[in-house]
């Protein structure tokens, strides 16, 4: 397997992790919003920020893959 192929697999693994992470954030945020609709705005903001943090990790993976590309 070429280094590019391995990099692509790495990026894919990073995407899986981030997908699970963002999924959990989204699910929990939805639950929280359903339970307490009065602080929906706050939950949304925090969920977006947290998703951005999780996503950053995946994007590091993507960038590493791009470095090999």
């Amino acid at each position, binding site marked *: 397997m070429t280094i590019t192929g391995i990099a692509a697999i790495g990026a894919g693994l990073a995407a899986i992790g981030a997908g699970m992470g963002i999924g959990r954030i989204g699910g929990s945020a939805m639950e929280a919003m359903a339970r307490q609709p009065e602080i929906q705005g706050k939950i949304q903001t925090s969920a977006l920020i947290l998703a951005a943090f999780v996503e950053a990790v995946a994007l590091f993976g993507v*960038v590493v893959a*791009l*470095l*090999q*590309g």
Partner: protein
Amino acid sequence: MDLVTPGFGLVFWTAITFLILLFILKKFAWKPILGAVSSREESIKDALAAAEAARREMENLQADNERILQEARAEREAMLKDARDMKNKMIADAKEEAKQSADKMIAQAQEAIQSEKKAAIAELKGQVASLSLEIAEKVVKQELSNKGQQEKLVEDMLGKATLN
């Protein structure tokens, strides 16, 4: 690799463009917009505060009115009570006075009756004495000889002339 290697030209132009953008927008856009928005918010806040103050004053006034009304009502109540008390007192006083004068009159009348009675008794006594003297004279004159009869007569006479 090329994709993640920053080119100097773009860094240079981005920095310059962004700084120009920041300074010009700060001076000519953000300051006026934020200033206008905050002064509008300030004026709204002031207006709200003024409205709140007015409302509070209104409430105060209303409370004052209520209080004054309350006071007036209490005063009226007190006045009425006073009047009623006075009336009662006057009635009571009058009753007392009347009673007293009536008592006095009764007492006087009784006194008068008593003295009349005493006078009458004294008179009666006098009369009885004179009567008895008269009788005694007659008896003495008539029966000075008959001593037994005399005594019997006196006795008889005195027994008959019981007082009262």
